């Protein structure tokens, strides 16, 4: 049974002539890592904000286990591009922040936070200050913080967009490991085609004006990584390259179509 469901979602900002998103339907269940890929302006951030509950759709329905989504809540955890950590707390307190808000006693939330830090390979960083961390480490803390609150689904807003290429590859592999172990459905948005193809079990391609789904691919490269194949071997596999080029072509043909439309 699907966990998260979007039915014919439309979104339009007040005063805007065109909708940001038009007629989006999708579902996200266990064992799924759904990646929304699209150029800027395709409404992928709006889509994530809708699911997170930061904004409301102008039409359509979003449900989590058949319960309509209303406003932000701890059952939909978010990892942000800009880490959004609290610099006045150390790493351990940041990871335990969601549990603190929920009133979990200190000893219990610290134990959980340590466990999550170990999961993202940051054991030993408990007492570091946020500004002492590198970009990749901050994103790990952000991921650990979202997971510690034990959400039903994990939403990731271009989580590796601000990282350098090397760190980004490491983080992609880490995400697959964490996703495998925590068994949480993940909804991730990105504009990096290789990242999308590598991570996704489900890849949706968004086109702008208005944002709509133009293609939905089922992929298994991430699962192959989880099964033990090396990331480099997968990414240089002809099938991987073929998929990547296909997606790339779709993005460019979309662009061209829009340009012709405007001309």
């Amino acid at each position: 049974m699907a966990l998260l469901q979007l039915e014919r979602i439309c979104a339009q900002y007040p005063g805007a002539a065109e909708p940001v998103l038009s007629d989006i339907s999708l579902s996200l269940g266990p064992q799924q890592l759904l990646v929304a890929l699209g150029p800027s302006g395709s409404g992928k951030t709006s889509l994530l904000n809708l699911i997170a509950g930061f904004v409301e759709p102008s039409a359509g329905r979003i449900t989590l286990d058949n319960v309509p989504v209303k406003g932000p809540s701890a059952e939909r955890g978010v990892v942000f591009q800009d880490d959004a950590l609290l610099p006045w707390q150390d790493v351990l307190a940041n990871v335990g922040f969601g549990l603190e808000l929920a009133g979990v006693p200190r000893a219990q939330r610290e134990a959980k936070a340590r466990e999550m830090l170990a999961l993202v390979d940051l054991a030993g960083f408990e007492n570091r200050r946020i500004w002492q961390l590198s970009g990749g480490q901050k994103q790990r803390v952000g991921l650990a913080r979202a997971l510690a609150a034990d959400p039903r689904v994990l939403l990731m807003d271009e989580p590796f967009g601000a990282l350098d290429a090397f760190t980004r590859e490491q983080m992609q592999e880490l995400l697959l490991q964490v996703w495998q172990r925590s068994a949480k459905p993940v909804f991730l948005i990105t504009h990096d085609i290789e990242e999308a193809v590598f991570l996704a079990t489900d890849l949706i391609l968004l086109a702008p004006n208005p944002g709509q789904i133009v293609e939905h691919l089922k992929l298994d490269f991430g699962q192959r990584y989880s099964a033990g194949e090396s990331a480099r071997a997968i990414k240089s596999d002809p099938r991987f390259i073929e998929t990547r080029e296909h997606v790339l072509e779709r993005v460019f043909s979309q662009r061209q179509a829009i340009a012709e439309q405007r001309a």
Partner: protein
Amino acid sequence: MSNYQSAPATETLISPTEKKAPKPSPRIQLSTGAISVLTLAFLLATWWLVTAFEWIEPLFLPPPSAVLEKAWLLMTKGYMESTLWQHLGASLQRIGLALGFAVLTAIPVGIAIGHNRIARGIFDPLIEFYRPIPPLAYLPLIVIWCGIGEFSKVLLIYLAIFAPIAIATATGVRTVDSAKLRAAQSLGATRWQLIRHVILPSALPDILTGVRIGLGVGWSTLVAAELIAATSGLGFMVQSAAQFLVTDVVVLGILAIALIAFAMEMGLRALQRKLVPWHGQTH
């Protein structure tokens, strides 16, 4: 990240090829702090010189030694029925009370202004109306309403401190990073938890800046108010000594006022470093 930045461009400039450039002459390089100390020493020496050779009459400028002697006398015996400590204590008590009340009320008001449209509509015009008025201009009205007791003086300083703290707090609240707010919301934060865990700590650097500004304004207002209507306090001490041309007490009082202001500023800077160590970090 700071590791990358800490390899400054200047270091790469001092490459072997640069050695041909004219070396800086081997003069003694003084730190800025040392220069400041020298300036003060020069000032003191000049003071001592002009008084030691009696180029200026002691009535106008007493020698440093006389001021020091007077300081000892004031600390032990007192002036106008109070020792220096009692005058100092009276002034500090007034500003302490006013600051305490101002912090307790201005921070919540500032948060309300920054957070809530209705609160902004109510408080903004009130604060903006009275803030530009020099406190001494409404002191007479306060005296008419509340008499010349301690309460009037504390109220006057309170009003002087309140506005900067409230305005700085509101600014801090308005500039809270919206990603942090959203992150807390998606971790389940309620409205109050947002204020307590995200908004207040985010605004703390601004609040402390407001307190610093407020204390500066408050202290000058207090001393000025004591010049006009008081029977104790540093301002009163200076004013009454001036009436009897006891210049050394006047000079001593001014020095004490300056020292206290300096100490408060330094104390708050230290507090700022301790409470908001993340401020100014590349976060």
